[in-house]
Structure formats: C-alpha cells, structure tokens
C-alpha cells in the first residue's frame, strides 16, 4: 500500500517492447539500480512499469540491448498535475477544498447531548454556551474535564457528566441526580399559625395544644396550635412537639378587576415581510435585505438545522417573518365588559380560591374613569393553619 502510494506520488509509466534478450536487459537494468516492477515477458514481448524519472535512463540502456520501447500509459500525481496544468482552476479548487476541509475540522460542528428525563437539553447547551462552547468553537481550546465540572456545578440536578470530543462532535453524557424523598422529622418543634384573618369554624388538632375554639376571631400570624406544652403537674415539665392539624375558618377575600370601555386592538396588515438568513458556525449571514418595520410588528422566527445523510451540519437556516399591524381603537358596551370581567373573576377563583369552599359571593359593578370595575367579595371556608417551625435548643444538645 505504502509502496503503491509512493509510486503514485513519484509517477510511473507502463512500457512495452520486443526484446531478443530479455534476461540481458533485466540484468543491465538491475545493475544500474533502476527499479522496475510488474515485468511480464512472453515470446520476447516485454511489458513492465518504471519510475518516471528512470524511464529516460532505461531507454538509453534498452537501445544497447536491442529493445525498442514505447510508453503505453502514464500514471501518478506528476502526470495528473501536468495534464491539468491548463486547468489551473481545478487544481486550485482541489487545494482550496483540502484547505477548507482542514480548517473546518479544527472547529466543533455539533453538540450531542444524551437523552434526559427532567433536564432540558437547551439548558445544558446554554450552560456550555456560557462557558464558550458552541458549534464553531476551536476544538483545542476546550478543556473537557473542566467543562464536565462546570456543567455539574451549574445544573444542580446533574450528578455526573462526561464530555468527549470525537472528531468535530462533542458528546455530552449526563446522569440525573435522584433526589431522595424528604424524611419527615418528628423531632421538629413547630406551631400552627393563621395564614389569614378569619373566624374559627372547626378544628382538627392531631398534636400540640389548641389555643382557639369555634367562634374565635383570629388575625394573620396568630398562633392557633402551640407546640410547646407545659404539663400541669407539680414537676412543671415542658414538652416540645410538632403541631399538626387543620383549623377551618371563615375568611373574606376581595378581588378587584377592571376593563376599559375603549382600548387599542392590533389589526394586522395583509403584507408580511419575510427575511431569510443562515448561520454558519457562529457567523450570521443574511440572504435577503428587506428592511425591518421600525415598530408595531410581531416577529415569528423559525430555525431549521440542516443535515446531510442524517448527520447535522453547523448550518442553520433562519426564517424571520414580520407581521406589521396597526393599532385600532375599539370600544365595547357594558354587556361585553361585564362578560370580560366575569371571565377574569372566574380565573381568579380557579387559581386563588381552589382550596377554599365558597360559602357566599357578592359582586359589585361600577363605572369609573372610562373603566368598568368589578369587586367580588367571597366568604369562604378554608384551612388557615400553616406550620411555623420553632428553633428550640435543649440542655442535652448544649
């Protein structure tokens, strides 16, 4: 293989001729240290291969042995170059191709991240980008071991990461951290306090000393169940407990919403402006030069990564579509405004009062400063007890 490559690089010719004394010819050639190969001889008809530079020496020798040779074919790089001497563009193009291929092989083309369940691949890509590793980064500037540590430090839910550079591709393999379930600590001392103002309806206390009874009015932050219990005996022992239970109370929630009777609405113009561009490594190259509308336009950006035979290449196509619009003044009547407000209040109920039972609801609507305002007063029943931990240090711990 290597011999054939050297022969190709140096160039060789195949020749043939009729010789009465082929053995004599062979002996002279070898004594002159001329290298010939693939020699066949049949009925004084000799065929062989010889190095380009040795051919003319061999020809002068062959005359002495009565051999008249002629070249049948020429092979190798020197002949290819001389053949395409007139087509210098092709040679230059080929050289340029090799040069470009070499330069491109110095940079990262693609980042492959292993499949993850909870971590978004974009999150990992963003972290790598923050540390300067993106498609187009110079390969030798990447310290894979350092990058592994940086990924683990940046994303808490990753327990192990491996970064391998194979050719122009970075393979990132990660293992997600399995967070153990929180162990309920019964030694924690806590109170139950009121999360909002209200009137106690009923209570279900599982541990701790209940300080409120049905009908009591409590304010936000007031202790409902105490975790510090003093025994009533003569010794005066104090017990520290974790308070658990549910304290239901009637609470009042006031939600206000408003909507204007006149507002500006987007009216899209029929013409949309399209701009195309492509990103090669980190170089952004625009393909169209349409001007961007200065204001009042929405933008839709579509990106498409190109691939060849299933392998993605560092070329990304961008398609930006601008939708210009005009702001048109629109007015609504009271019925429409009322419907909008009802919808908004319903949304609030579903989100903010989802854990409460609504006992009563009172809605008030009024017009003020070109706005239609709604105020809803909800009387609800809900569990207002929230745990508040106490920092207790015993003598034993000291």
């Amino acid at each position, binding site marked *: 293989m290597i011999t054939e490559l050297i022969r190709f690089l140096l160039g060789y010719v195949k020749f043939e001729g009729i010789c009465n004394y*082929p*053995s004599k010819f*062979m*002996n002279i*050639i*070898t*004594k002159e*240290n001329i*290298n*010939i*190969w*693939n*020699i*066949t*001889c*049949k*009925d004084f008809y000799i065929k062989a291969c010889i190095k380009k530079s040795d051919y003319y020496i061999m020809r002068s020798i062959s005359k002495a042995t009565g051999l008249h040779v002629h070249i049948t074919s020429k092979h190798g790089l020197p002949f290819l170059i001389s053949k395409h001497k007139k087509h210098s563009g092709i040679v230059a193009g080929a050289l340029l191709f090799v040069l470009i291929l070499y330069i491109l092989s110095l940079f990262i083309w693609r980042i492959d991240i292993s499949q993850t369940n909870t971590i978004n691949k974009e999150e990992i890509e963003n972290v790598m980008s923050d540390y300067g590793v993106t498609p187009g980064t110079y390969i030798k500037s990447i310290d894979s071991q350092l990058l592994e540590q940086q990924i683990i430090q940046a994303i808490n839910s990753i327990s192990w990461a491996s970064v391998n550079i194979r050719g122009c591709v970075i393979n990132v393999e990660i293992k997600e951290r399995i967070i153990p379930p929180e162990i309920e600590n019964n030694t924690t001392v806590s109170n139950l306090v009121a999360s909002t103002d209200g009137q106690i309806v009923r209570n279900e206390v599982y541990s701790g000393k209940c300080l409120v009874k049905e009908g009591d009015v409590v304010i936000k932050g007031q202790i409902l169940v105490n975790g510090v219990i003093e025994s009533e005996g003569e010794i005066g022992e104090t017990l520290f407990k974790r308070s658990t239970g549910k304290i239901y109370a009637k609470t009042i929630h006031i939600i206000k919403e408003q909507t204007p009777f006149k507002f500006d609405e987007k009216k899209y113009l029929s013409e949309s402006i399209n701009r195309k561009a492509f990103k090669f490594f980190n170089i952004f190259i625009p393909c169209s030069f349409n001007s961007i509308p200065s204001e009042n336009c929405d933008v839709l950006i579509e990106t498409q990564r190109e691939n060849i035979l299933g392998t993605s290449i560092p070329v990304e196509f961008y398609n930006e579509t601008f939708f210009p619009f005009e702001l048109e003044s629109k007015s609504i009547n009271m019925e429409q405004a009322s419907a909008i407000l009802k919808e908004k209040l319903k949304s609030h109920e579903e989100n903010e009062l989802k854990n409460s039972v609504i006992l009563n609801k009172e809605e008030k609507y009024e017009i003020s400063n070109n706005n239609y305002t709604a105020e809803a007063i909800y009387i609800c029943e809900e569990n207002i007890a929230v745990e508040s931990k106490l920092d207790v240090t015993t003598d034993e711990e000291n």
Partner: protein
Amino acid sequence: MKNKIKKVFSGASSITNSLNLPLGSISNVPRFEIISNKEVSMENYKNIIEYDDNLIKIDAYKLIISFWGRKLSLKCITEDSLVIKGHISSIEFEIKGA
C-alpha cells in the same frame, strides 16, 4: 542431486556449524520464501539467465535455479533480490559446472 548440493554448501555449512551460526548468515547463499505456488521471494542472486512466462532461470552464484510454471512474471526486481509471481509448477536446482 541432493548429494551435490550438499557438497556445494559443505564449506559454508562447516563454518556455520563450527561457529554455531545459521546457514543463511553467510553471504551469497540464496534464500527463498515461497508462498503456496503463487509467489517466490528470492535474495542473493547474481543475474537472470533466461526469462519467459514459462521459465525463469536464475544464476545464484554456485547454483542455477529454474522456476517452471505458467504466467510467470517478476513482481519486482532489485540488484540482489527479486519476487516471482505466477503459477509455479516446479523448482529445479543445478550445480554450476556439474
């Protein structure tokens, strides 16, 4: 034939035997490597006596070695070694002047 070949190399073999050296370490002794009947590599030859696609006769100093076969060709040749390719049917050894 075998006795004659032994006689030729008796001088060389006696030296190598006494010095406990391999026979191939003495120069001008032809050496062969035969791969099946398709290829023969030969070192230490003097010159080619006859060359055709059926017969290649080689002067190997004290021996004349003939390779008989079909479609014989010289794959490559240098001053002291050569490679014969083809279908080799027989190899014949002759002692010079015998």
